């Protein structure tokens, strides 16, 4: 494939007795913003460090632009890393930091000066070119670190938790900026993050990792709307779940007979190919797909579960609460604050939770 930027083939990395990276194969396209998402210890940083060349795989191979990276040291790889701590050289000015890579590659002085100017323009730091890193804010340091990588026009820019050190507001602003810069330069970005919202907002595609393995790869909407396993369902967004037995599977549809909740009829669910009646499954549905209706009512075309409001908290744009269904099932609900600031349903009140059968996702229990 000509437009393949990175091809990881069955990578394995052991740290002592633990398998940090467990046979990971990933293909990343040229010009793509690709994220590795997972909790700490998922192996995503090990993967990134293997791409950069700071760690050597115990097995498998990495191809960048079709070239094997086996035995290639970090300073000979066509990749540049934006460090989590930024790792700006404290004794060099902004412009000197940005020029460093080109100077090491012995690019003529005039061209270095020109490209430093253009790159600082790109990250909007032209006025700060003579400042020392210690005199910059966190967001500015982040942009210098990015400029220091971009100026080399590498095949791939690697970003290690790029926005983790920034506060919430700056973080959102930098997300937009990062995405815009990436689109402008058209370089492949590979970003490691444990922040699911950030990964969804930034990425063209992403891989969710857990304990050294890739759990699912896809576009943000694939992962959020069609999680293939419970880990992805729970890690990417909030997952409201009910366990049960799958029944009446027919033409991509079926019904779920819940284990813990007694119902007059089954929950209607979409069923993907390969799943058969009689197996144990979990159905998951996102909070924002659920309509909360006071009182115990039934909807004609909608699935419906009855419960009692346990908690409600006001977060401004909406209400978020927990509804207990039956004895032990608890679901998170979001109620829009579009009409008024008053509490939509009272604590302890009976409510009906309704959702479209198509919004449920069935995941087989293994």
């Amino acid at each position: 494939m000509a437009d393949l930027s990175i091809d990881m083939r069955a990578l394995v990395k052991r740290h002592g007795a633990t398998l940090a990276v467990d046979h990971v194969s990933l293909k990343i396209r040229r010009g793509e913003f690709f994220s590795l998402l997972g909790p700490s210890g998922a192996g995503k940083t090990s993967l990134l460090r293997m791409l950069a060349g700071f760690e050597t795989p115990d097995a498998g191979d990495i191809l960048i632009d079709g070239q094997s990276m086996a035995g290639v040291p970090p300073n000979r790889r066509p990749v540049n890393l934006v460090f989590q701590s930024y790792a700006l050289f404290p004794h060099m000015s902004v412009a000197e930091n940005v020029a460093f890579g080109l100077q090491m590659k012995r690019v003529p002085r005039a061209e270095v000066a020109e490209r430093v100017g253009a790159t600082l323009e790109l990250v909007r730091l032209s006025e700060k070119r003579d400042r020392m890193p210690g005199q910059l804010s966190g967001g500015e340091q982040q942009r210098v670190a990015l400029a220091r990588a971009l100026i080399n026009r590498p095949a791939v820019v690697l970003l290690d938790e790029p926005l983790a050190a920034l506060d919430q507001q700056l973080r959102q602003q930098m997300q937009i900026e990062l995405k815009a810069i990436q689109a402008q330069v058209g370089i492949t970005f590979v970003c490691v993050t444990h922040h699911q919202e950030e990964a969804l907002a930034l990425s063209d595609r992403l891989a969710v990792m857990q304990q050294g393995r890739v759990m699912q790869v896809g576009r943000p909407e694939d992962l959020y709307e069609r999680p293939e396993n419970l880990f992805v369902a729970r890690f990417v967004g909030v997952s409201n779940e009910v366990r049960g037995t799958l029944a009446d599977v027919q033409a991509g549809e079926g019904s779920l007979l819940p284990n813990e909740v007694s119902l007059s009829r089954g929950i209607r669910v979409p069923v993907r190919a390969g799943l058969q009646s009689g197996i144990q499954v979990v159905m998951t549905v996102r909070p924002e797909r659920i309509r909360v209706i006071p009182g115990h009512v039934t909807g004609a075309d909608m699935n419906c579960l009855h419960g009692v409001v346990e908690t409600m908290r006001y977060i401004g744009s909406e209400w978020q609460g927990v509804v207990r269904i039956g004895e032990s099932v608890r679901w998170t609900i979001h109620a829009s604050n579009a009409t008024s600031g008053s509490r939509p349903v009272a604590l302890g009140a009976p409510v009906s939770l309704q959702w479209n059968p198509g919004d449920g996702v069935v995941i087989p229990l293994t």
Partner: protein
Amino acid sequence: MNQSSFSVESAAGSRSRFAGFRLLVPGLLWTIVFCLLPMIVVLAVSFATRGTYGGVVWEFSLDNYRDLLHPLYGRIFGQSLLMAGMTTGLCLALGFPLAYYIARLPPRRQALWLVLIMIPFWTNFLVRTYAWIFILRTEGLLNTVLIQLHLISTPLDLLYSNQAVLLGLAYGYLPFMVLPLYAAIERVDPALIEAARDLYADRWSLFRRVLLPLTKPGMIAGCVLVFIPSLGAFLTPDLLGGARSMMVGNLIQHEYLVARDWPLGSALSLVLMLMVMGSLLWYFRAQAPQAGAGGGR
């Protein structure tokens, strides 16, 4: 309210200043008794005259300093400066890779290496220098091994040379270089080294552009700690250099203990001290601007 709190603060300030002064007294006393008074004695003696049978005659004269203008003394001072400079350079060249290696080890291994480096200090310096005589002399360890291996047929003349003195001095003062260098390198964020490597730096560029500027204070400290004792050394040149090499330290020792010319010895000591102070001042002044620019961290 603001005013009253201000006056309370300033009263507390003056009280603490007075208390601070009282706290200074022991240190001040110590400095006067053990540092300033002996220096004054040396200064006074350097302007006195030698008695016929040694001893000091309190007769003011500038003869001691006039004697120092003799080219012989100039040569010994020059030789000493050169020797101390070369020792410092050798210690830096040997000490930096070692300090870098130790600083990049896991913490427990670092402690082990630091102890290994300090172990020689538990033994007497004289004894350790004698050990070098056994290694370097004509029938010594090194010559024996080289002859056994048929690398040489006649023993090399290693002992009693300037090279032997240089080796002995570098051996003796290497830890003084390694320890401050280690402290400086250990403080450099490993991510900076990785960043340099990621940005295509080879080993030499990594050292010159990143490690050197960031560890300069440690290097200066190490150089000062090696240069000063090397300049005044007398034991090592005496044992390993024999009659062929004389440093200021030997000369001073000779004037005090053999020639019994205390006034000349005192004058020599003071000139040596001025030289050390002068070179330190020059060094710090030369480094000051860069040190200020690197203050971002």
